[in-house]
């Protein structure tokens, strides 16, 4: 038994090592050399006098990269990072200075306190729009700062809380040791970002950041992922705050006022939120501002603090004016423009095709109803969609088609009625729960994840059923996580090949044509392994050839046993693909049946078709 486990572990490690060696690049070698140089710098450069400042900078950089987890990865505009830093710092300082705690438990308390505050804030602000999240976190910063100032008995007032000198194994933790620790932590949070960003959690967050509703439709647990990113960001700030206060050996409230949050936020935006080195670059620029402000201020007899904040503000405006991507991405883009890298070999799609639906089941709705105030959006809708068939839902604008789709996928809660698949009621399930049951809706054509490539976009959908995709397994790339990732990738490639985008794997979704974007959304939905797929106007704006291609794809999906509910205005397309047609008018089903039956219905002709012919 033990021998088998050892053998299995050895095999996994060998495979992991082999994969790591295969993935090692010149860039990785350069990065490793820079880290080694940074760690060796105190031994070879005369920096001892500046080491406390440099170590403090590195801890601040750790907090800034932590903020990028919220701002860059999850798209949460948090202006509260300084507050979490302060909470971590004061939890540490109170435990050490007043409670006499040893270093490690106090550090854990600092991290835990900041993480708890982050989680509570994330829960409270999770449903708010971005602007309100920014305002809420900004208010949090003020509340924390004012609370600390209001209780000088706890925070130490002007003298601050003085910490005893930290020791590790009997040796004092000096500024150089703090610096080495800070560099190691900085590397860890940067590597963590680099690992998470292109993998399942990072792609899901990116999708949620770009098109939250589209991500939800693909079963991404957006709220949970965003809360996780925000809590992680706060925990990293808590760690940086706790270690920073150990370095300074004093904690005072003025160090954690709103200016700090502003500075960290600006650093992230200035340097670039979507690359982990961006915040470090941003902090460097602000540091340069600070030095410049000090010099100019000295010449003009002005207090240095004022000029620094002013210059920082101008820097932020500049970056926002240039598009908001940040300085580092802009520099990298320029570099790539002039030093074009050789075209990477495109990953080849596998030979396998999209599998048949494993457990086909009919979708039924019974008396499905929804009112918005006095407006009847949908009334008593009864639908039945058989496996391996295409059911078109047509009707004039405002007739309730999209409401029906949202009720089926769980985006909206019905006032009355129920939705079931294979006889199993779905009414208590969320959108993600329904997606796991095989009911998936795709959004309109423009709802692509603009920042993701074709492959990444489809991976978001393919990740729905992936196991072993938690943050820790992802970070440590466990054998199960790697196997899971490989399976998801195969699934995504199959879906991409099915729609015919296998030549565009690395292309950003935003660069695709409208038709290609429609295909991409279809591929993303197919990658979730649905039993029933709901398509919202898949043919909108398509030309004849594109329509034919799309119709051909839907035919093939029907043959694989998939049930397709299609909302469509293009009646020629409906004629081409639909087995059954239901017609809605003012929220009510006025006809349902075969094409011929519906086309000959006088009520349909009066309400919808007019001169058109089905």
């Amino acid at each position, binding site marked *: 038994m033990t021998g088998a486990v050892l053998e299995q572990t050895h095999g996994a490690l060998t495979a992991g090592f082999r994969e790591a060696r295969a993935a090692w690049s010149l860039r990785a070698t350069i990065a490793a050399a820079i880290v080694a140089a940074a760690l060796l710098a105190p031994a070879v450069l005369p920096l001892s006098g500046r080491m406390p*400042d440099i170590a*403090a900078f590195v801890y601040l950089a750790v907090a800034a990269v932590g903020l990028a987890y919220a701002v860059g990865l999850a798209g949460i505009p948090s202006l509260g990072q300084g507050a979490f830093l302060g909470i971590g710092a004061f939890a540490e300082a109170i435990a050490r200075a007043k409670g006499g705690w040893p270093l490690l438990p106090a550090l854990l308390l600092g991290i835990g306190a900041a993480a708890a505050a982050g989680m509570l804030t994330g829960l409270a602000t999770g449903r708010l729009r971005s602007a309100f999240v920014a305002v809420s976190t900004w208010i949090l910063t003020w509340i924390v700062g004012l609370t600390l100032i209001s209780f000088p008995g706890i925070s130490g007032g002007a*003298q601050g809380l003085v910490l005893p000198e930290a020791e590790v194994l009997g040796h004092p933790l000096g500024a150089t040791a703090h610096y080495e620790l800070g560099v190691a932590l900085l590397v860890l949070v940067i590597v963590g970002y680099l690992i998470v960003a292109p993998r399942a959690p990072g792609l899901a967050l990116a999708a949620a950041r770009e098109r939250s509703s589209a991500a939800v439709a693909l079963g991404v647990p957006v709220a949970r992922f965003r809360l996780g990113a925000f809590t992680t960001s706060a925990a990293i700030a808590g760690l940086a705050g706790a270690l920073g206060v150990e370095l300074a050996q*004093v904690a*005072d409230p*003025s*160090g954690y006022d709103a200016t700090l949050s502003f500075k960290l936020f600006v650093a992230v935006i200035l340097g670039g939120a979507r690359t982990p080195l961006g915040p470090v670059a941003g902090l*460097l620029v602000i540091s*340069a501002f600070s030095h410049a402000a000090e010099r100019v201020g000295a010449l003009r007899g002005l*207090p240095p603090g004022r000029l620094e904040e002013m210059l920082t503000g101008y820097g932020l405006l500049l970056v926002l004016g240039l598009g908001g991507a940040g300085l580092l991405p802009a520099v990298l883009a320029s570099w790539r423009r002039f030093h074009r890298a050789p075209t990477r070999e495109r990953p080849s799609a596998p030979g396998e095709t999209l599998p048949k639906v494993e457990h086909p089941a009919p979708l039924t709705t019974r008396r499905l109803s929804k009112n918005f105030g006095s407006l009847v959006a949908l009334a008593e809708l009864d639908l039945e969609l058989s496996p391996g068939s295409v059911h078109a839902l047509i009707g004039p604008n405002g007739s309730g088609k999209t409401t029906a789709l949202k009720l089926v996928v769980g985006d909206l809660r019905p006032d009355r009625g129920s939705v079931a698949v294979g006889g199993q009621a779905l009414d208590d399930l969320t959108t993600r729960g329904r997606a796991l049951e095989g009911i998936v809706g795709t959004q309109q054509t423009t709802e692509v994840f603009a920042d993701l490539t074709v492959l990444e976009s489809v991976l978001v959908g393919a990740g729905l059923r992936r196991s072993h995709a938690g943050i820790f397994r992802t970070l440590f790339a466990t054998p199960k996580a790697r196997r899971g990732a490989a399976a998801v990738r195969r699934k995504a490639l199959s879906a991409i090949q099915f729609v015919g985008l296998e030549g565009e794997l690395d292309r950003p979704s935003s660069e695709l044509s409208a038709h290609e974007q429609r295909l991409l959304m279809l591929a993303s939905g197919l990658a979730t392994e649905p039993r029933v797929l709901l398509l919202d106007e898949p043919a909108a704006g398509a030309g004849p050839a594109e329509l034919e291609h799309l119709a051909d794809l839907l035919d093939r999906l029907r043959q694989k046993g998939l049930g397709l509910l299609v909302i469509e205005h293009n009646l020629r397309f409906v004629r081409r693909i639909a087995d059954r047609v239901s017609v809605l008018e003012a929220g009510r089903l006025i006809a349902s049946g075969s094409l011929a039956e519906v086309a000959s219905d006088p009520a349909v002709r009066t309400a919808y078709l007019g001169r058109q012919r089905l």
Partner: protein
Amino acid sequence: MLLLLVFGALATGCGGDGANESTKTLLIAVNAPFSRTPYVGLTIANGAELAATSSSGIVINTKEGAFSFRIKRYDSGLSARRAVANVRRAIADGAIAIIDEGTGINASWRIANDADTPICIAFQGGKGLVDPNERPNVFRIAPTDHGVAFRLAEYLIPKERRIALIVDDSDYGQQGRKALDEAFERNPESVAVRLTVPTRAPDLAPEILRARRAHASALVVWAQPSVIASVLAAARGSGWDVPVFTPAAGEDPLVRQQLANHPEWVDGLTFATGRPTAEVGSVPFLSFQRLYEERFGVQLVGVRIPAGAEVTQPPDYAMYSYDFVNVLVAAIQRAGGVKDRKKIIAALEEVSVAGANGDHRGFNERNHDGVVDDDVYFARFEDMTYKPVKDDPLSATLTEIEQTR
């Protein structure tokens, strides 16, 4: 690359002591809140600058050679953390001594002590900041809170007034509360009411009403200058001509600037602080004042007396940092140079100099406070200028300093 840039950016501020072939320059660091309370910061820095780099330039000769001085300002922003970081930077810059406003001393003294660097507090007077046994490298030339509070009690209690003790919620106010509680501990019947007011309150009328209803016949206000002005405005605005007593914050130009539209409201404000003149008369201080104003210009308060002349502020707090630099110079000479910093700290307990006000300034092994409690005097405002009171024995002996031009 980024980390190398970090080093570059942060190392920009690195600087050693300037030196030429014959004279080495020693750095004296001034760690004060220049950005938050510029008056305090500039006063301390200017006093030190005046002593260290007078127009002729001080050059001292020792066994180790000749030394001159330069002053470098470090902005603490009233933040303990920044103040401590500044002390580290100053030591890294090779500072021979640090003149400090006092914020963060509880943490920074140890760092300076490890580097055998003396710190002199030139503004804050809190109890416990200075302790020759526990903090051998910490000195102070400034009136102590204890001295100011006891002198206020000593002055007011015999007048049999019912006193409202008003402090604000700043650290300065809370330190004052402790000192006042101790000073009035044995005469609780003298205290009509104790009030803590918010520093940022827009209107203190309710608090003043409470004091009035407690039948207070005098207000002792230990608070930031802006709060003192608000107390005066609330009291005088309600027609209450109660006498108001404060520590040194009462003479801060900000009080008069805030009440410039009602100069009569300042009348009767009495503050307690270290005396700028001594038994030898006003000549030493006037000489110091002339030097100061020649170097830095006259400090205008920004208000005028009824006759129209502009009111000026005497550089009384600047004399403390000025005195410390002179004591330090004497200590370096006694130590025979700067190689052994411990010798300089020891020598600081042995030397004394004639201070800017004519008093002897120095420390000894049992006392690192250079201003004795008995040197606290009282001055009262009238027409936007102040003069020593006549009903206090010490103050009555002091001469008035000209404050208009």
